[in-house]
């Protein structure tokens, strides 16, 4: 009854500032989809269903997918539209996997939209995510939500400003090697510390940019995957978890829901020692400090000890568990494309196709996405060869 699902293709466009973007949404979609199909030698007619992921409000369009034709609508291929905020890429990936495992479809196209590529004032848009009655009146946008976590975690564990700058710098340096990253400045920790404070304790170079660019992935059922691809990347486990809508029970000292989700996903995937069992990870870090909190929640280290992993180089390219060798969301944030990117990056790493940023022979990878008001949703996927 349960069939295995695998990633067999990834297609990227290049990424740039959304202010400098000259490609239309339709052109970006077409390019990403064409590139993904090209990797496996399929045509659009081979797709059974397409999954589109974005956040409508950020695109200033209600249901933007309807007005794009890049997903096979011309051949009447059904379009499934998933919007769970920033985690939509992970939720969409989960939809694709479930449809295949359920035996409903054999070949699924997943698209991560360049949510921000038309936006004139990025913060204005991001500030709409705040619940209208209880939180928006307080001038809270995405970056403030990130700051609540970064502030508490810092105070809780005596973490230094320098450590936050260091983890940001690790991502910036990694992005220099990634031809698909947006920001490739390679900032040092000192340069990060000199960048302006946006909202305490988050500095500008610890914040994600607003990028434009798109990603498409092709997933397939076991039989078709083995026919079409030499190195299918199997989805061993995927799930998501939801928190309360408002601040709720959160005290922001950790990603407690991610910890619960990790336990569930690790059990399904047979992961016992994450630091040893994973060869590569892509964690959602629109604000660099999140990466440290994610090390804790995902069990890479004891709670509050994330900084020692960072300082010991454990999560650098030659470390025991390279994290965010793509440069992460802090270097490339094309809206919901960012959430799909985490899965695409892991797939490319396992396929040995992560140009410039390839980790040595990874076999088991972890992909994470995060989103919603105050980080309401997390998704987590374990991918293997």
């Amino acid at each position, binding site marked *: *009854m*349960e069939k295995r699902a695998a990633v067999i293709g990834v297609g990227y466009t290049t990424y740039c500032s959304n202010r400098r973007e000259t490609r239309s949404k339709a052109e970006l979609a077409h390019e990403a989809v064409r590139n993904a199909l090209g990797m496996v030698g399929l045509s659009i007619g081979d797709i059974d*269903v397409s999954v589109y992921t974005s*956040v*409508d*409000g*950020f695109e*200033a*369009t*209600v*249901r933007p*997918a*309807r*007005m*794009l*034709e890049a*997903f*096979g*609508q*011309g051949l*009447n*291929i*059904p*379009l*499934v*539209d*998933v*919007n*769970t*905020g920033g985690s939509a890429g992970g*939720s969409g990936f*989960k*939809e694709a*996997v*479930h*449809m*295949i*495992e*359920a*035996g*409903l479809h054999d070949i699924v196209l997943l698209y991560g939209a360049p949510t921000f590529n038309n936006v004139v004032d990025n913060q204005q848009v991001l500030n*709409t*995510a705040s*619940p*209208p009655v209880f939180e928006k009146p307080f001038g809270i946008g995405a970056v403030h939500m990130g700051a609540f976590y970064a502030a508490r975690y810092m105070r809780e564990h005596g973490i230094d400003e320098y450590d936050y700058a260091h983890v940001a710098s690790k991502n910036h340096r990694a992005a220099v090697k990634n031809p698909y990253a947006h920001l490739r400045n390679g900032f040092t920790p000192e340069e990060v510390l000199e960048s302006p404070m946006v909202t305490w304790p988050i500095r500008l170079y610890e914040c994600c940019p607003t990028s434009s660019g798109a990603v498409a992935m092709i997933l397939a059922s076991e039989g078709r995957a083995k026919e079409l691809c030499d190195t299918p990347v199997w989805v061993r486990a995927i*799930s*998501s*978890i*939801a*928190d*309360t*809508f408002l601040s709720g029970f959160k005290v922001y000292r950790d990603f407690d*829901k991610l910890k*619960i989700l990790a336990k569930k996903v690790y059990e399904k995937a047979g992961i016992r020692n994450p630091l040893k069992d994973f060869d590569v990870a892509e964690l959602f870090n629109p604000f660099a400090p999140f990466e440290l909190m994610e090390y804790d929640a995902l069990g890479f280290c004891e709670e509050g000890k994330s900084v020692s992993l960072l300082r010991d180089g454990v999560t650098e390219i030659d470390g025991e568990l390279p994290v965010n060798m793509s440069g992460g969301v802090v270097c490339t944030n094309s809206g919901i494309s960012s959430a799909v990117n985490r899965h695409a990056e892991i797939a490319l790493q396992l396929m040995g196709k992560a140009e410039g940023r390839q980790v040595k022979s990874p076999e088991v990878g972890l992909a994470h996405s995060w*989103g*919603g*008001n105050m980080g*309401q*949703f997390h998704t987590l996927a374990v991918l293997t060869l």
Partner: protein
Amino acid sequence: MGKVGIVGYSLTTFRDDADMSSDELVFVASSAALKDAGVDRGDLDAVSVASIDAYDGITISNGWTAPAGGGYGKDATRIQGGGVAAVMSAYASILSGAAELALVAGGDSVRFDDTVTSNASYDVFFNRPIPLFNVSSYALLATSLLRSGAATEDDFAMVAAKNYRDGAGNRWAHVRAGYSIGDVASSPLTCWPLRSLEIAPCSKGACALVLASERKARELSDNPVWISGIAGGSTPCFGSWAETMEMKGLRRAITRSYRMAGIRNPAKDIDAFEIFSPAAPFELAYYEPLGLCGKGGAPELLRGGVTSGFGALPVNPSGGALCTNPGNCGGVYRVVSALNYLRDHEGARRAVVQDSDINLGIMGETYHVMVVEKERA
């Protein structure tokens, strides 16, 4: 392939205005659905919300309604293409083994202007500036039907009156005025050729379904309702007008869901149809693709009373969208209406639910069709 059953459901009465917030409404429907299924929130594995941000007035609005569907601490998602698409997500979740019990819910509380909302769903270059919006797009289709001789304005009024008559007898429906053909035909012209009473209202309310794996469904019910077929199809937005009128996306969804369910002769095999017809002409246009008649046979079927609530082939016995049209939970409402029909009519065993996202207008639309059947009549 394994089976997925619907083991519980609930809905609120639909009205002009809600006195509850969206999360309260979804909570009321969801907790009642769980009770109806004989389970509680602790038993749930997954929640699938049917909604779009623009109908909730909040970006990432599923944040607000997923916990209201019992999703706190659980695997929750939100599907934007209509209730049946959200059902399909829960269905796949169960068949993949990720869930044994899943809840699908939607609720409509917030007032919005659906002309502005639907206009904002069109592309910025060609259609939004016109401005094209849902009703004007429906009217374009209506004109094509008239001018091709597929239907008359009388037929539009007749199918509307049929829905109103059936809705008057439905205690959950929003509009129960039972408008006559005369009322409809004399209602003001909104977008020629469509009159105001030929166009669905905006309704407020909520509903929820509880889906279960085969094993769980058999534990919870001695006569479960199975989802025996489910499929989708889309139409391109910038295709030819002929493509829009041909509705190949709808046909794909129908053909594949019927095939899955083993439906060979819809007129014989199906006991009732709940379809999404936000303007009277759609219902007529859908009879033939649904397999109820041959090309051009829709008016005859309608005029013969075959598709009325008491006819041989009831289509929209609930009164359809003309009587009840909540933007978020419309698809779930259509599923609930079909389930109510199967429960209330002795001998009825199979129903078809047809849903889409054309509340935002046609062109670029996606359809989902589902077949539900009781184990025993």
